[in-house]
């Protein structure tokens, strides 16, 4: 994979912008934070972490697309679809330092901004604002998880489908249908049937 310097600059700027939503960071503060970050690049269809491995990294997607799934009885249950600017990691494994039950696999060629477990602990100890930033980030993650879970329990298939495609219009083009169907807990056949709802001119 080859990418232009401008592409990295752009992605780094997005990261600054993304983090500043949680707490304002000066150029200098963001620069300090960057020294803890690694850039990791993967081709498409690569397992970034496999079941049984211990997750070393917390990743933000610079560009590309990845999914997280649980292998359950010969099936793969997609639990997350992440694109640019999204956080993705096997969190139980990362925090408890235990083998991962989940697999993270790229769908497109993907570049991650990653921070290792050890670097993250150092960052918390050495960089005063990190504590606040970390708390805001994790709170946001909790709220999103809670909303998604509540939606799964209260909304019907059609509502879940329509809300997802309206809030993530580009995903329908980029992600294989079966992954979205699995993520929304909709049968693939039902998903195909619902797709006519988003054909041009029928929105």
């Amino acid at each position: 994979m080859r990418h232009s310097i401008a592409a990295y600059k752009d992605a780094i700027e997005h990261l600054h912008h993304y983090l500043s939503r949680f707490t304002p960071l000066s150029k200098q503060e963001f620069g300090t934070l960057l020294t803890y970050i690694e850039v990791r690049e993967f081709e498409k269809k690569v397992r970034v972490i496999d079941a049984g491995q211990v997750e070393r990294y917390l990743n933000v997607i610079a560009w590309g697309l990845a999914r997280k799934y649980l292998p359950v009885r010969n099936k793969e249950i997609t639990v997350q679809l992440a694109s640019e600017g999204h956080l993705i990691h096997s969190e139980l494994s990362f925090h408890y330092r235990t083998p991962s039950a989940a697999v993270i696999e790229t769908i497109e060629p993907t570049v991650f901004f990653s921070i290792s477990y050890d670097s993250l602990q150092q960052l918390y100890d050495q960089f005063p604002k990190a504590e606040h930033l970390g708390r805001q980030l994790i709170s946001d993650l909790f709220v999103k998880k809670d909303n998604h879970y509540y939606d799964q329990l209260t909304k019907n298939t059609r509502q879940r489908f329509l809300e997802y495609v309206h809030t993530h219009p580009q995903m329908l083009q980029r992600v294989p249908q079966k992954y979205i169907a699995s993520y929304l807990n909709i049968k693939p056949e039902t998903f195909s049937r619902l797709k006519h709802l988003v054909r041009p001119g029928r929105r």
Partner: protein
Amino acid sequence: MLELLRQYVMGYVTLTPEDFSLLAEKIVVRQFDKRELLLRPGEVEQYMNFIVKGLARMYFCRGREEVILNLARERELISASSSFLSGEPSNYFIETLEPTTLLSITRDDLEHVYKQNSRIERLGREMTTYFVLEKEAWEHACMRLDTRERFLAFVEKNPELVQRVPQKYLASYLNMKPETFSRLKPLLRRRPLANVNR
């Protein structure tokens, strides 16, 4: 009472007595009878509550059905955390199941203490991380375990809740029909040692 809370938070981070007193100054004691509602859908959760004594549940209504998302007892937290963290109206009810004593702190007071002291902010981060991980672990369990395995995993971890919580609530929490729960209950008697040891 504060000693219980101190032990609890020290499980997450080490606080000096001065740190802890910053937190303790903001704590209020709240007492409830059984079957009192602490929160209704549409309200913003103002409190993070630590249970000193008693038992509470968090749930929402889907049609006529009550879906229980959380059951909390002594030395555990109960709060509509998502609303507490975001300031958005809650989707959930919180109700006591027994007479309950809570140590509570408001959103504003907690934010204020976070600003004063970075170790307490770390406590907030660690606890919120733990909430996320618990949620994740629960969702994984629901996907990976079948009904019977879910039942056994729960009763092994929470033997005394089986005595204290009405069966239909346990069934709802475990996402199974009350009949299924009844059918699985004999499994408990076959595992007396597991209960005694805990």
